[in-house]
């Protein structure tokens, strides 16, 4: 898994590539919790190049989401690949995360 963080005006984008599973999610957790600690207002996760996500990976996003909601921050998902979207739909996580077609849509919403 590869994590790439870029700071933009009004939001921080985190692009993830590869598989988010039990073994790789601790690195992602560090990145997201650092954002939450700094009380970042808007974090947009770009999932375009994610090949697979398991429930440990999803729990990592859930933890970050809960932490960010506690101070009024927003965690948004963008460019979710079909395979990942299937998992989100199946688990009704589309009711949990704000999902957008593109980074621009997520930033402008």
């Amino acid at each position, binding site marked *: 898994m590869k994590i790439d963080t870029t700071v933009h005006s009004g939001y921080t984008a985190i692009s993830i590539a590869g598989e988010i599973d*039990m073994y790789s999610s601790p690195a992602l*957790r560090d990145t997201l919790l650092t954002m939450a600690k700094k009380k970042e207002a808007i974090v947009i996760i770009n999932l375009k190049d994610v090949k697979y996500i*398991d*429930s*440990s990976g*999803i*729990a*990592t*996003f*859930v*933890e*970050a*989401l*809960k932490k960010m909601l506690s101070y009024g921050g927003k965690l948004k998902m963008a460019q979710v690949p079909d395979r990942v979207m299937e998992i989100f739909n*199946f*688990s*009704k*996580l589309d*009711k*949990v995360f704000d999902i957008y077609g593109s980074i621009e849509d997520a930033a402008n919403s």
Partner: protein
Amino acid sequence: MASKKNCDKVTVSADYLRNIEKKVEDLETIIEVSSIISSTLDYNKLISIVMEKAKHIMQAEACSILQFDKELNRIVFEFAITGQRVTSNALKDKVTLDMGQGIAGWVAEHLEPVVIKDVYLDERFYREADKLNNFKTKSLIAVPLVGRRGLLGVAMIINPKDKSHFSDYDAGIFQTLCVQISTAIENSRFYTESVQMEKFRQGLEIASVLQKSFLPETPIFKKGNLHVSAANIPAEKVGGDIYDFIEPVNGSIGVLVGDVSGKGISAALYMAKIISDFRYKSKMIEYPEVVFKRLNTGLSNSPMGMFLTASYFVVDVKTGHFSVSTAGHPPFLWVTKSDVRVMDIPSGPPLGILSYEYTSSDFSLKSGDSLLILTDGVFDAKNPKGERLGFERLVAHVKEYRQKETLVQAIIDFVNDFSNGAEKSDDITLVELKWQ
């Protein structure tokens, strides 16, 4: 022949003889160290003896060993012997060096031994260790300790007692000793790791037995016309899948099937908490959506974002009427004599994430009908090529074998055949509710 015998007589100096004697003694000590190494795996004892021997053979005032901490990418003082005492406490945890820092750091970085006549003339020398140890280093030999898995640390022999600095011969002897010290360190590490692994394995065995005790005593349960059978196969020794049968109110049976996010020990511990919460919070309540609301509140402060996907059925054992609530759990299958229906009923998000008003759906079973509730491990099973079984393929199989008496076992056999020995990536749980 007589003249040849005379030629064999050689006169040597006393110095030469002393030199030879010293070399023989050195070799004997090296052999002795070698036998010590194969006699014990107690790391602390071993290193103390080996260092003492090294100090003796090298006629040195002090000897120290620094260990390489791979995670920190630093080297740390582990042992130091000066005079008659082991002074590891004076330096341990107090002196750590970056790669390249000090003479030891330089040796660790370059993986090359060094012989230094006067350390105070060498700009690499780190003086802090001398201050902490109340010792004055003059001359030293530092050698990298390298094992099969790479750098282990650095060994240093300090201040010869009988001369101003160490010779190349001394460096050769110390390097030979260091090969043995490396073997000793590596052997004892392998041993410690294997002991730890064994302890961990035993702990897991106990955890596995304990976890099974949280599940119903028997995977088969019968009440009225309702016949329940279940199977639970964790991917590892312990897992995060749940199933439970309870009798919440007279004449009703509650069946919970759930899947905790993650796998292994953390999921198993969380599963144990959830099952206790569930048994407490479902008592006297015949509405699954109310149980889910109560469970969801209780799990809202879940650690590390952990959550539970679940389906909860409450079946009236007299009429076959049932209510079901689902929280992010895969659809269940309704198996009739003529068909298999995928029951994708309105579902809320998994439990433990956000506040939510769960709903329930109501149905009635007919004689011969079965409900099949499963966790995603069943259809996420992979074959040796890495292909997943998939929900559609599973449903097609259930359609084909729906008349089987032991549907749960037939599906487990099918999943096992598909996996064909490939490592299980997730826990598998299947529960069949059959209305006879």
